[in-house]
């Protein structure tokens, strides 16, 4: 587009004021379809995927809006398979007192909600404890087991 406009300016022999900038907002960093995520538990499939440099991609967010936040269940494509996972840390700006992480972290879970790995090696937001009280059954995520494998809370 700019090349054509520059040509046009040369042809018309006067300076055409053209703007090359798009309107930009601050990056929202939302977890949605095709977001690449980081597995933070010690499950074999998670570790292999992260080591070989092909992080899992989100292919569905179990949410009314397609945006996932801390405590939401997502479906990820990892090493050619579909697995469910829980989001335990987001890059998105959060409310006061809720921690924001430098990467979007997930923990892989089975269909019945139990986590596959046995330990989470990064800090986990303590707001998951509150979510545990409220929504564990509705989302089919076993938050008690999830919190029991967490090592550090932030």
């Amino acid at each position, binding site marked *: 587009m700019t090349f054509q406009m520059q040509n046009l300016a040369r042809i018309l022999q006067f300076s055409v004021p053209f703007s090359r900038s798009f309107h930009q907002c601050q990056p929202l960093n939302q977890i949605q379809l095709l977001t690449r995520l980081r597995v933070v538990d010690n499950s074999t499939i998670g570790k292999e995927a992260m080591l070989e440099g092909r992080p899992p991609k989100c292919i569905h967010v179990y949410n009314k809006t397609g945006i996932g936040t801390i405590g939401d269940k997502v479906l990820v494509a990892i090493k050619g398979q579909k697995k469910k996972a829980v989001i335990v840390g987001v890059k998105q700006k959060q409310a006061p007192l809720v921690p924001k992480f*430098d990467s979007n972290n997930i923990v892989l879970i089975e269909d019945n909600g139990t986590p596959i790995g046995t330990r989470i090696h*990064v800090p986990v937001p303590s707001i998951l*404890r509150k979510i545990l009280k409220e929504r564990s059954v509705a989302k089919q995520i076993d938050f008690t087991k999830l919190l029991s494998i967490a090592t550090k809370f*932030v």
Partner: protein
Amino acid sequence: MLRRAVLQTFRQGLAQSFFKRNAVSLSETTVTHQPIETSDEADEKSVSKQKPGDESGNTVVVAPPEFRFMYPEFLPDPAMERRNRLKEKLERIDMLQRRSVVEIPEFYTGSVMAVTVADANSPNKFARFVGICIQRGGSGLRAWFILRNVVDKQGVEILYEMYCPLIQKIEVLRLERRLDESLLYLRDALPEYSTFPLDMEPERRLNNSVVPINPLKVKLRPRPWLERWERQNLQGVEDLNLPQRFYDKAEKVAKPWEKYDLMLQYRKTIPAEEQEKIFADVHSQLQQQEFKRKIRRRRGTD
């Protein structure tokens, strides 16, 4: 003339202005209780303390000029559309009330702090986080700051509202300033620059010392970055080592005339006369609180 002197101090910026924190005698030397007739000492400081027009002859109390740096949240948002003097006055009363309950210490971006928050869901009902303050903002009761730390190789940032009733304790473990007002570039820096042990002890400082400026130059990770740091004139980063085209583009989009724009500066700040009024309003209470805390600390009942 007063305005020019004040505008000059504004333009010098925080990095250049050193000031004393005379913790011992806050009640004596830094506060000047001056009767209207003798105001000769006022000319020493950058902001004149002459107060004409007080016919009743009462002593006029003026806060020391350091207050605008120590308590910046008392200054309201300068945007004219949102100024409401009554609301600001009520907010200041609430802020002082909160400060009488919880000590909110003086801190700057670059200080390492620990915040204890009431957390209903944790086994011990409190949650403590240690981090470096990378940014602070807001005004009035909404004043906030962001703490950053790298825990178990994971970068974590938490935004705290200073006057939130859930906050139990704010400790400043290391009081210092950096070369920049906002340290958001730490997100793109090597993790060692944002790592602070969670069990860090508060560092003791000499009483009469100036708040030090840490001249640390931080190394950034290789690109891609979250922001275009080469366009932001950062003092606290090492040489970015980018190809020349980045710096050329930065020059093209730069707005070098903004530093001469007086009206822009005026709209971004509260005028000196108003600042004086605001701090004169609050400083006696702040000093009383500080004094009481010092006594409690000396007695060991803190």
